């Protein structure tokens, strides 16, 4: 009767992970700064020719972030004037038609998923060059960890409020779980809190290949990058077929641990081998002990 999977171009390659969120991978800006940009063109200092991308129906303003797999642009939807974020997936992020199909299916689910605390996917399509793109709601705000830090610095720090904020995050993640979407990459950088205090979860399920779902890697100095500190044991073990909603539960646990104690449940800085080993075997230090130790200092 209808074909939900129209023929598509496929670009073979391997996607391991998407770039950091559009909000947090740029230097944090005060929300007021973004809001006050009356003329959208003034936001992008670069001439448009340098943006190097044309997407029908949208006026691309500037590049927000650039990651290994995708570039995110800020744009204006010409028909409505609303500010959007467009994520253009780089060539060859899908290694097989299966992964492409999965991507398409997840996008369909995401378009249907209209949860107030999950960043809305508005549109999708292909650029003239054949690159896939996703159009999302543009969110003003900052990453969850920055939000928590800022509140603490203001002295506006109440564990009950934090739990309530976290509760909304967990409920939003659950709404996606109920549709069969697993985030696989939950971390503070993927949770944006707007100036009114509402959380918005970014990067849900999409733009991630079928294989490894978490970027594993360390810098030369041994500091972590990417999503490893929030990875569940099954993700750290590379058991991608075991990744399910409970993997998101684990990541939520790390996030809540961080919110409450300001630290990770175990050592996440060091060689990759040590970190993976900690995720797989180290028992988390009880938050009360962490706090007692800090209080004693």
């Amino acid at each position, binding site marked *: 009767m209808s074909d*939900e999977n129209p023929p598509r171009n496929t670009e073979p390659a391997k996607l391991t992970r998407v770039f950091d969120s559009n909000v947090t991978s740029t230097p944090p800006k005060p929300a007021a700064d973004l809001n006050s940009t009356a003329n959208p063109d003034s936001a992008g200092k670069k001439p448009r020719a340098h943006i190097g991308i044309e997407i029908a129906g949208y006026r691309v303003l500037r590049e927000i972030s650039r990651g290994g797999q995708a570039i995110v642009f800020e744009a204006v939807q010409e028909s409505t004037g609303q500010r959007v974020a467009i994520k253009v997936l780089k060539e060859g992020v899908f290694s097989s038609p299966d992964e492409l199909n999965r991507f398409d299916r997840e996008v369909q689910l995401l378009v249907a998923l209209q949860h107030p605390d999950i960043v809305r996917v508005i549109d999708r399509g292909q650029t003239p060059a054949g690159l896939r793109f996703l159009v999302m709601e543009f969110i003003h705000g900052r990453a969850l960890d920055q939000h928590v830090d800022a509140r603490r610095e203001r002295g506006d720090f109440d564990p009950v409020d934090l739990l309530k904020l976290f509760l909304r995050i967990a409920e939003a993640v659950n709404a996606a779980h109920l549709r069969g979407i697993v985030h696989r990459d939950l971390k503070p950088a993927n949770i944006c809190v707007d100036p009114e205090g509402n959380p918005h979860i970014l990067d849900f399920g999409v733009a991630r290949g079928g294989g490894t779902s978490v970027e594993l890697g360390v810098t030369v100095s041994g500091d972590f990058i990417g999503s490893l500190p929030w990875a569940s044991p099954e993700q750290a073990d590379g058991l991608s077929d075991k990744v399910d909603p*409970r993997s998101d539960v684990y990541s939520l646990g790390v996030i809540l641990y961080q919110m409450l104690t300001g630290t990770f449940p175990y050592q996440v800085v060091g060689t990759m081998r040590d970190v993976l080993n900690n995720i797989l075997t180290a028992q988390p230090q009880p938050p009360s002990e962490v706090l007692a130790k800090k209080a004693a200092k």
Partner: protein
Amino acid sequence: MSRIAKARRVTTHVRPGVTRTVEAIVLKALNKRREDRYQSAGEMARDIANYLSGKSTLAAGKPDRSGAAFRWIAVAAGLAAVVTIGWVAFNGASRPEANPPLAIAPATPIAPALPITPAPPAAPVAPPAVIVEAVGPTTTPAVENLSSAENSRQEIEKLFRPEPPATNDVPKPTTKLTVERAGSTLSVTCPGGSLTVTKLGDSLRIRTPDASQLVPMTGLTDLLLTAGAGDDSIDIDDTGAINVTIEAGKGENRVRLGASTGLLSEMTGKFTIEGGGECAVELNDADSSSADAYTINGESITRAGGGDVTLSGCTGVSLRAGRAPEDVKLNRKLSVFSTKAGMTYHVSTGGGSGSISVGSDQEGATLDQMQGRIQIRVESDFVVNFFDRMPRRSVSMKLADGTFKRDGIELAAVNYVAPRKSGLIQITLPSKAPATLDIEPSSFPSVAVYGGPDEGHVINIAPRGRSLAMPCVMNLATGGTINLFDDQSIEPDVLVWKPAFLYSEPADVKRVNIFSIYPNTARFVLHASPGSVLKALDYKPDALPLEVIAPEDFTIERTAGDPEAGIRRVRESKP
């Protein structure tokens, strides 16, 4: 790098104490074994909500009463006294034993720039109404530009959904939203007629296009929504265990439960919907993990997972269950037991597996109580059942081109939208009574008919000039006469006959398998077309005989034995 530095800096600050319960919640989420963690984010969220409202938790059992816990509550209560805009609603929730706050402070996290009529001073007995009023269009309407694939999908959605949400409407000039709380009942009046109710944390957010209101859910058991006088659009996203009564206006109304979040299975309260005019109700359950059952009985819908839905004065119901990936195994049961004249029933499977039943499998039940229109949409590997179990009555049924008819009354249309054709239609014929069933299954991947061995049924497969070369599998668990019509010449027209098993060649392209579990009582009659060939394989003399009504140039090929043994050729022209 900067974030790492920031994370380290944070560690140097000491945060207020963490209670035993919160610690247990965090550690439960961090179990190395998946089986020992919370099994879903929802389970974790519930535990936190339970902790915040002083109930027992999965992680730590009974609520703790340590000093730290009380300190938190004291802080929260202190904050609430000062803060007037924001998450005031949480204050009530952290003190479950306290009465709900009398005055609801205006809170507009969505549109803070709107003018707000502040609440009058709190009266000690009768809580005052809070009116959030906005003038003029303020919010940018959400516009969804979708790609062409999405558009075609939406075309289908449009067919299915009685009244798609109009996202481009010009906001109404003035919308008053009155929210009034009396004890455990919350009354919401919205003459503008466009209303969305969503659960955010432990509060309800009540929203019109240009006003928004947060109300704490603590102690709330009933929600009464009175909409406008015209065309109302009421979306209920999530209301937890609260009972909801909706009074719609006299126009064309649309009520959606589990509207955008699909959290119907988590909404366990009772729903009563009274449509003043035409009212289409949509039940949207996107839960891919639960095994919910819904039974439609005229104007009431029974939900195994929670409170019932009662509809009165409504003209349509759209029940859409599941939005799981196809391969998710569910056991969801959607039953249409009886339908009311003048109503249209859309029943759809969003994904996963389960069954949709029209009629009842109880002995004695019939399809006679089906009065309205039923539209069934199968999006995944669901079984669709049609039951007619009334003894001693003769009925005539027809399954063709996406419709199922009984005695001339159209009962249901079955549309497949699954990318991979899957699913099964099962028809149960009346017992102890003859029935006639015509099957022209152009779009059904698989059909099964149940009737018993000696009922004298007549089943006509592919009548009216159709070919047996259909992509379909048929299992016939019935006796009686089974007529196989193949009177349309299609090249190559080769039929393969094994006892009680017939299919057309080439099998991988167009295939119809017909198989009866009652070969001893079923009489198979093949109405063959000119020039076609019947290959009889695996011949056994005692096997089911096949009668062939065929023209002169019909050929029978035999792998062994007498070419004509067991096949009675009746030389006459096709009917």
